[in-house]
Structure formats: C-alpha cells, structure tokens
C-alpha cells in the first residue's frame, strides 16, 4: 500500500474513532480537505511551486500516522533543547502527544489548550468557526492533508490588552522509536487587540534510530495593534524532515515578525504566507539558513499586500556547504488598491561547497503604481580581500572565514529580541560553521 | 511685472495663503521672509502653478495678464522661473539634455525653430562658466548624486539658460556653504537687469547680504504683515519674527 492509500484509509479510521462530531463544521472542513488531497496527492517537481524540492525520497517510507506507543522522556535528557535559562511557558508534545509533565502553561490572560479539545469543546465553537482553516492555501495539498488530520498541536488565544511577558515555547519532540512516523501538528494562534506575544517553535528528534516526517500547519491571526514575534528553530537531527506551513493574517497596525533559523534536518520546506488585511501593517520575514552535507531547505514565502499604507521587509541569508541545496522563492503581490506600499525583499547567498546549489526566485507582482518595491538577490563567496586582510593581521584563514560568515548572517541575528535566544542562535551558528567565536 | 491681489490658496481645504497683495516691477528685487510654516514656499509654488495647491480667491497678473489658468509650462514660457528648494532628480536624463529640451520647448512656444546645436553648446558653455560649474555635471543625470550646493548651482545655471522675466528663488540659500552661496548670488546678480525681476524667498537674512533687495516683506500666517526696505531684513535678523505677531 503506498503512502497516499494508507493516508486515505487512516482518515476513515480517524473518523470512526469519533473524535470529531460528524455533524460539525469541522467534519465538513476535514472531508473537503481529504478530498482535495486525494485529488492532487503529494506535490511533485512538475508543479511550479515545487520545482526545486522533491519529496520523492521522503515519501518512500512506510509511515505510521498514529504513534503506537505513548512515550515519555526525562526532563534531564531534553533540557538542552529548551530555553531553560529564562522563565517561559512551555507546550511540549512527544510524538504528537501532549506531555503535561514537560509542559508549563497558564490561563492568565490567555487560553491555551490542545487543538483536539479546541475543535471539540462547545466553548470554543464560535472562535474555531471564525478562525480555523480560514487562511490556509487550499491549493496546497499537504496543508489539506494536515487539515484532514488536525488533532495534534496547540490552540493559543491571547486575550485583548495582554502583554505576555514570558515567551511561549512550542516544542515537538520525536522519540524516533516507531519505524517511521508522520506527525501532523496543527496550531491556531490568535492574538487579540493590543496584545503582545513572543513564541519559539522547535521540532526536535532525539536520535537517529528511525525517521520522523513532520507536516505542520500553523495559522496565526494578529488583530489590531497586536505584536507577534515568532521564532522557528530548525536544528533537527539528520534523519528528520519538516514540511512547515505557516499562514498569517494581520489587521490594522499590527506587527508580525517571523524568524526562521534553518540549520538541521534532512529536508525542510518552509511555506510562509502573510495576508495583510488592514492598513499600517508591518510584516517582517527574516531567515538564516546554514546547511552542509546533503541537507535541503526550501524557503517559500508570499506577502499579499491587500490594503494601502503597509510595509513588508524580507531578508533571507543562506550559507551552503558540501552538497547542500537551498531554495528561496519569495513572492510579493501588491494589489491594485494597496497604494503607498513599501515592500523590500532581499536574498543573499554564499556557496561554500563544490557541490552546493542555490535556486532563487525573488518575484514581484505589482498592480499599484504609487509603491516602493524592490528585491535583490546575490550569490557569491567571501571577500578575498577581507580574508587576506584578516590573515595579514594574524587570524587563521579558517577563523577569518568563520568570522566573515558569521558577519554575513549577523544582521538577521541582531533582530532577535530575546537575549537568551540570541545567545543560543549565535552558538548554533558558530557550531554549524565550526568556528570558535569569542563570546 | 507681477501683480498679486488678494490671493487665497491652500491644499485640500486648508487655507495657507490668506490674502496676499504684492506688486513687483521690472528691475526690482523683492525678498519675502517669514518663519517656518508662514506660507513662503506655498506662495512660490502657487505663482509657478503647482497643481497641488488650489487658488480659491484673488488674482495673479504677469505683465497685466492673468496666469492663473495657465499650466506650469506655459507660465514658464511666459517668463516665470522658480528655483526649487529641493531640486528633483531625474535618473538617466543629463542636465544638458534636460535644459536643451526646456529651451527648445520655450522656443517652440514662441514660434521659433530649435536652437542650432552649435549655438546651444556656446550658450551652455557661457552660462556654465558664469556659475563656475564643472562641465562634468552637465553630462551627469539631472541632480542625481549632486551635493546640495551643486543642485542649487544647477538651478541658477538653468535660470541663466532660460533668461526668465521673473525669477523666484525658493530658499536657495538652504544647504549652501558660504562659497557656494557667493557663487550662486553672484550668478543671480549678473543675470539681473532693468527688464527682469527677482523674488527671493528666505528664512534668513544671510542670502540678502549678497542679493540685495529693494523691498522686504514679512509673511506671517498667510499674510504679508510688514513691508519695508532692506533694513527690515536686518531688523528681523536681530529681533526674530516674534515682535511682529
């Protein structure tokens, strides 16, 4: 049985489990979603949006869709994966199952619960009907696949006028004890007017014994004047792969920043879509990708400027060693009525490896005339003169390279607003680049 | 030459000029001074015909003819020149090409043929020398990458080329060091004669040391609140604008 067939059968199983009321809206959404997936199946390289990323190798495994055992892990074994130096709220999943033992949440000013409860409980019906699956791309078949199976993941609702002081950590551990596991977390994050929140998301496999493929979908709603800082830390083990789809809708005067740090994992695909549905919105997309060996990362972004007087700033940097491949596909669409839009998009890459590849598609589609839009893309190497200069002053070539590479990514690191996280990211970068940095 | 009567003008319903009366005769130099926001720049824009501003009342006569219905280019042809406070950059269009186009547009308006290339070149050389302009600026894109001083010098160079009847210098001294200021003022003085007139718009008295006005007007809150000779400028420099309010 191939994976697609297995998925379709599993869907019926899920229906029979009775988790979801078959009369509910959610049931209808799921049914539509599974049919959409059934129709197109997994994306192939023939599709323009998947031209440079193949899922073929990932899909040859016999994934289980529901973990067979309930796994527990000791805190001391995974502490390093959490930002433990500071106080934070933690929402932890192990193989897709919520771990109350490792988690640490509150209900003050916010509502945090499991996606499965939010979809089921009458208390959430209004809000779920209003938000759930409203901004996803229905043409994206793997998003549809996630929608059909949405039970894992978190529901986070920050109420009006709430400044959430402590960051929220959203951690998905994969024990890799099943032969091959397909995880499908689904998050819904709603930040109401005047509220601020910082979220750190991480997918972490714990050993390379088996394989986990994660197909994650997150919907984020920033209401008026909301501020959201979101950090995606992708430093997974070699065996695991991630398909991450994030959809953001913003209302007037809101500011949303998504920072994506891709260092680990086998294959990573980040789909990131911003929909600006109000005025004076600021959308920020930052990313650093540092890859080696045969790693592959595809950053696929879209910013829809639907209303006037909004801004978007996009900055992605990539360093590719060995036989790593990187893809940057950035699209900015400026609607006819979105006058006075400022949209900037920049993608800079350094190829280190003999067999490394970068494919970049920075696109602009402009339908309004009074706008400032630009994009730039560079591919190159380290500045030979700078290397020589540093060597002349006694710094080894390797160290000089490391420093220059670090400097290359620095403007993205500088944007990190949580000092402890900044420190960690800096360390991760140094580690990945294999240089000592005097911090 | 220029006669403005009871001029009211504003932008998007907000009245900025509230009844200006001003008469400038051939051969005269007038200065309009006033604090920020008094309407100085609006006045120059309205005379030049910037469509951002709406004239609600009053009249502007140039040589006894109303120019209110004329487009900015027609006003230019009729002899109105405005030196911009912030000269605009036009990428890819050289200063030479730009001024050539302007001169020939005016000639065509006057029913003349294009100026032969030879004469054009001679004229450009002559006027560039007057402004002590390095000729490399002439072949660069209009105002692009020019320093503040270079831009203003370029403005007066264009004035020299177009030989206007009425030259309005809008805050021409801003952004100029003293040497550039002298060159610019010197250029203006050389161009002045009994058949043309100059209207200097400025916040500070500094420029008026070099371009000496026959009359000074103080603009405040959209009206000329005081007029006098050049001594008025010194008085303003000393006492500031507050005593007039």
């Amino acid at each position, binding site marked *: 049985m191939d994976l697609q067939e297995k998925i379709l059968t599993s869907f019926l199983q899920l229906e029979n489990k009775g988790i979801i009321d078959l009369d509910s809206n959610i049931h209808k959404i799921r049914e539509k979603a599974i049919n959409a997936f059934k129709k197109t199946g997994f994306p192939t390289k023939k599709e323009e949006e998947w031209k440079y990323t193949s899922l073929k190798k990932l899909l040859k495994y016999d994934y289980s869709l529901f973990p067979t055992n309930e796994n527990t892990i000791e805190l001391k074994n995974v502490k390093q994966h959490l930002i433990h130096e500071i106080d934070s709220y933690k929402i932890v999943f192990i193989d897709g199952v919520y771990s109350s033992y490792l988690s640490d949440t509150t209900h003050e000013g916010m509502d945090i619960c499991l996606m499965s409860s939010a979809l089921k409980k009458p208390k959430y019906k209004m809000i779920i009907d209003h938000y759930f699956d409203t901004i996803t791309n229905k043409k994206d078949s793997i998003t549809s696949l996630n929608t059909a199976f949405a039970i894992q993941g978190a529901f986070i609702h920050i109420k009006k006028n709430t400044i959430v002081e402590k960051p929220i950590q959203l951690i998905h551990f994969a024990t890799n004890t099943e032969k091959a596991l397909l995880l499908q977390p689904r998050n819904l994050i709603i930040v109401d007017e005047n509220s601020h929140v910082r979220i750190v998301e991480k997918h972490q496999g714990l050993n390379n014994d088996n394989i986990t493929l994660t197909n994650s979908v997150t919907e984020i709603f920033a209401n008026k004047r909301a501020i959201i800082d979101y950090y995606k830390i992708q430093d997974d083990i070699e065996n695991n792969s991630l398909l991450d789809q994030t959809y953001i809708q913003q209302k007037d005067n809101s500011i949303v920043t998504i920072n994506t740090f891709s260092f680990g994992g086998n294959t990573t695909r980040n789909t990131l879509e911003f929909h600006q549905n109000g005025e004076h919105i600021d959308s920020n997309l930052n990313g650093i990708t540092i890859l080696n060996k045969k790693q592959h990362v595809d950053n696929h972004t879209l910013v829809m400027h639907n209303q006037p007087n909004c801004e978007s700033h996009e900055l992605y940097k990539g360093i590719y060693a060995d036989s790593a491949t990187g893809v940057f596909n950035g699209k900015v669409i400026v609607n006819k009525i979105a006058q006075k839009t400022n949209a900037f998009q920049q993608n800079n890459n350094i190829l280190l490896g003999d067999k490394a590849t970068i494919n*970049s*598609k920075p696109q602009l589609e402009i339908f309004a005339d009074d706008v400032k839009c*630009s*994009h730039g893309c560079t591919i190159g190497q380290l500045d030979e003169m700078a290397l020589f200069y540093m060597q002349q002053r006694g710094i080894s070539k390797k160290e000089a390279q490391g420093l220059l590479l670090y400097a290359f990514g620095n403007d993205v690191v500088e944007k990190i607003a949580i000092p402890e996280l900044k420190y960690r990211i800096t360390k991760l970068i140094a580690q990945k680049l294999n240089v000592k940095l005097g911090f | 030459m220029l006669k403005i009567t009871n001029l009211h003008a504003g932008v998007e319903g907000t009245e900025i000029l509230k009844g200006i009366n001003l008469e400038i005769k051939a051969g005269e130099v007038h200065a309009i001074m006033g604090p920020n926001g008094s309407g100085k720049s609006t006045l120059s824009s309205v005379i030049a015909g910037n469509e951002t501003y709406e004239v609600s009342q009053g009249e502007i006569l140039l040589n006894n003819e109303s120019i209110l219905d004329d487009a*900015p*280019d027609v006003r230019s042809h009729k002899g109105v020149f405005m030196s911009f406070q912030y000269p605009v950059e036009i990428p890819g269009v050289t200063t030479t090409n730009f001024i050539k186009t302007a001169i020939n547009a005016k000639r065509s308006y006057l029913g003349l043929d294009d100026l032969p290339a030879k004469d054009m070149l001679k004229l450009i050389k002559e006027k560039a020398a007057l402004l002590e302009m390095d000729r490399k600026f002439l072949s660069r894109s209009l105002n692009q990458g020019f320093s503040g001083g270079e831009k203003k010098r370029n403005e007066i160079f264009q004035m020299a080329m177009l030989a206007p009847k009425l030259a309005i210098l809008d805050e021409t001294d801003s952004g100029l060091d003293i040497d550039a200021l002298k060159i610019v003022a010197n250029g203006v003085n050389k161009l002045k004669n009994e058949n043309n007139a100059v209207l200097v718009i400025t916040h500070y008295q500094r420029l008026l040391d070099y371009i000496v006005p026959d009359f000074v007007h103080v603009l405040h809150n959209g009206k000329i609140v005081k007029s006098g000779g050049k001594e008025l400028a010194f008085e303003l420099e000393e006492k500031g604008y507050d005593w007039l309010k």
Partner: protein
Amino acid sequence: MNKYTEEDLKKELQNQEYEFGFYSDLNSETFPIGLNEDVIRAISKKKEEPQWMTDWRLDAFKIWKEMDEPDWANVNYEKPDFQSIAYYSAPKKKEKLDSLDQVDAELLKMYAKLGISINEQKRMNNVAMDIVVDSVSVATTFKKTLGEKGILFMPISEAIQKHPELVKKYMGTIVPKKDNFYAALNSAVFTDGSFCYIPKGVRCPMELSTYFRINEGGTGQFERTLLIADEGSYVSYLEGCTAPSRDENQLHAAVVELIALDDAEIKYSTVQNWYPGNSEGLGGVYNFVTKRALCEKNAKVSWTQVETGSAVTWKYPSCILKGDNSVGEFYSIAVTNNHQQADTGTKMIHLGKNTKSTIISKGVSAGKSQNSYRGLVHIGSRADNARNFTQCDSLLMGNNCGAHTFPYIECKNNSAQLEHEATTSKIGEDQLFYCNQRGIDTEKAIALIVNGFSKEVLNKLPMEFAVEARKLLEISLEGSVG
C-alpha cells in the same frame, strides 16, 4: 470568401493528380487553411526544397502534434485555432501607388513623428521613386560590398538551395524542433526568413538589416533566421523597424538561431512594433518568438531589443554560454500600453568557465497593460568563475496596469558570483511639476523621463536606430496620462 477547406483541396488534388502530377501545379497563391502533412509537403514543394528539408519539416510536424500550447506565461489571450490558419501565402505584390496621397493618412502621421524621410516613406509603401534613391541600386551596392568579403546574406529559402551544407549543419541545433510548441510549429511550416554567414576573421563592414534585405517580399508569419559568425568574425544585425507594421496575420511565431564560433561577436538588435491592437484591446498581433544564441570559446552575443508593439508578446532571447570566457548580454526595453501584454526576458545558461552575462531589462507599463520580466540565470557545475549581473526596473504609469518580475536563479558552482536587483517606481508628480516649471509639457516630460529610464538600453542600439527608437517610445506612450 468561403473557406477553402481541406476537403476541397483533396478533391482538387484528386482531379488534378493524373493530369499534372501530384502537387506539381498548385498555382493558387494561398494554400487552404489547416495543417497536415500534405500541406507541409506542399510548402516544401512550393519552395522547391530538397528532400532532406521536407523530411525535416515533417519530423517537426510530428513532434508538434504531440505538444500542448504552453500556458505558463503571464499572459491571457484566446488561443489561436491552428486549423484555421493558412500556412502559406506567396508574397503579395503590393499595389503600385502614384503618390503618397494614396497612403493611409494615419500611417503618414506616424512616419512624420518618427522622422522617416519622404523617400523612405515612399519606399515602404511601394510608391514609385525617382532614380536617386532607387532601393534596388542601393541593395546592389550592398550586395557587392558583402560579396567581396565573402559574406553570405540571403533569404533562408535561397540558402537551402545554395548552401545546404551550412543550413544542414546548423539549423535546429540551437533551437531544436522539440524545443517548444511554437518552435516546433515554425520548424514545420516556416516560409521565410534570413540566412547570414560571416566567414572566419571577417568584420562585417555595415549593419546588416532585414530592412535592406535583397529580394524580400513582406515579412512572413513564421520567420526563420539563421546567423552564423565563424571564428573571429563580427557582425551587427538589425531586425524590424520602427515604422508601424500592420499585418493581416495575427499569429507570429519566429525562430532565430545565432551561432558565434570561437572569438566571434554578434550584436543583434531588434525593434518590434507590430500592431498592438486598438485602445479597446481588439485585434493586434500575437508574437511568440524563440531566439537563442550559442557562444563558443571567447565568443560574445549581445541581444538588444525595443519592444513596443504586439498585443501579446512571448519572447526570451537567450544565450548558451558553452565556450570558456564567452559573454552574453541582454538589453531590453518593453513598453506596454492599453491592453497589451508582454512576457519577456532572457535565459543565460552558463556552461563554460569564466563566462559572463549582463541583463538589463526595463519595463514601462501604461494603460491597462501587463508587463512581465521572466528570466533564467543558470550556472552549471563546471562554470567556474561565472559572473552575472541582472537589473530589472519597472516603471508604472497609472493604476490600471501591472509590472511583474519572475527571475529564476540557479547556481551549482561555488565560485560564481551573481547579483540581481529589481525596482519598481512611478513617474513622480514632483518630477512632472519640475519639468513643467522649466517649460516642458507633461507629455514631453513623460517622454523625457521614460527615455532617461531606458537610457542604458537605448545606448546599446546602433546610432540611427536609437534615434528612431527614442521617438517610438514617445509615440507608444501618447495619451497614457490624462
């Protein structure tokens, strides 16, 4: 006129077959509409082509039949019905006119704006001319000069007869029959075009222009151009002209192949001003062109294009930088107004070491038009030290048009350096006012600003061409601002 269908043709053929031999006496000037193997054989026969050419065409037809019309470009149009097109019409003799008074007044107005001389106007409209500017004698002089240098410049059909070895060796090697839908169609049915060969080490002493091409009889619907610059040679080739071309044919699918052998240089300039349709977007030419160049060692190919015409344009002049140290350049200005749609750009395929490419693309959109840049820069794994610089600028005029940029950048070599920049801007109110103040009216000011915007591209055109192209830009944008 009733459509002359295939059935009619068959009937006629059956009737005439014995009498005159198969296809030997098709004296009708236009073939029946529709496309099948018989029609292709007939075209080939009509051109008195050798068997290998006929077979080549038939092979292309077979390939074409299996292909689908592409729809990835950012253009919308009603797809042509390929079975309702007549694929061959002999060059019609233009009616001789006695004076320019008989020429369409609109056309004359346009000529005047473009600054085309009276004599030239006469020539273009087939008005009888005096001895001084007899184009035939001009052409003869040209031919003599070229002949002395050993340069071959002739219609492609003539080259198939006279220089089959060159045609056989190169045709279809740069743009293979199966390259794309329109290239396959062109390969099957092309009827017209130019052939040019510059021998080793020869520097072509003049701009070669289709304009002066000898024996030319109107531009065909499916043009095929083959240009070979042998080792160390140089040629500058001009295609098209600024004068508006009204053409009955709605679909144009040309193929241009350039071969620059070691150390050769080709400069290929195009001004395209096909009928763009009226202000409502009705009519107008569909221009689907495949242009590609191969650069061998140290060779250089430079494409320069000014595109103002056609209702729909689909065109990507490309360079395959196969040889080490070869250079590819693309300079383009595309202006769209009213309902025009242009999807144009280039492909730079870097295969050799130390290869360099430069792309400067300027798009001006006005009215309700859509203007897209689509380009590929590919650096192969063996292309050490490859360099590319790309700049795409768009200028929007008004709020009903669109400007789009779709660059594809693929890099598989870690010593390559690429830079891509794109900007979008509009003509500022402040720029217009400044020009107005200096006495330049709005229309003229726009022309001035657009010319400044396009300067880097216009500068690449041969002198006389540039002057006309500049005027053409102005005319194309007339009335685009209220």
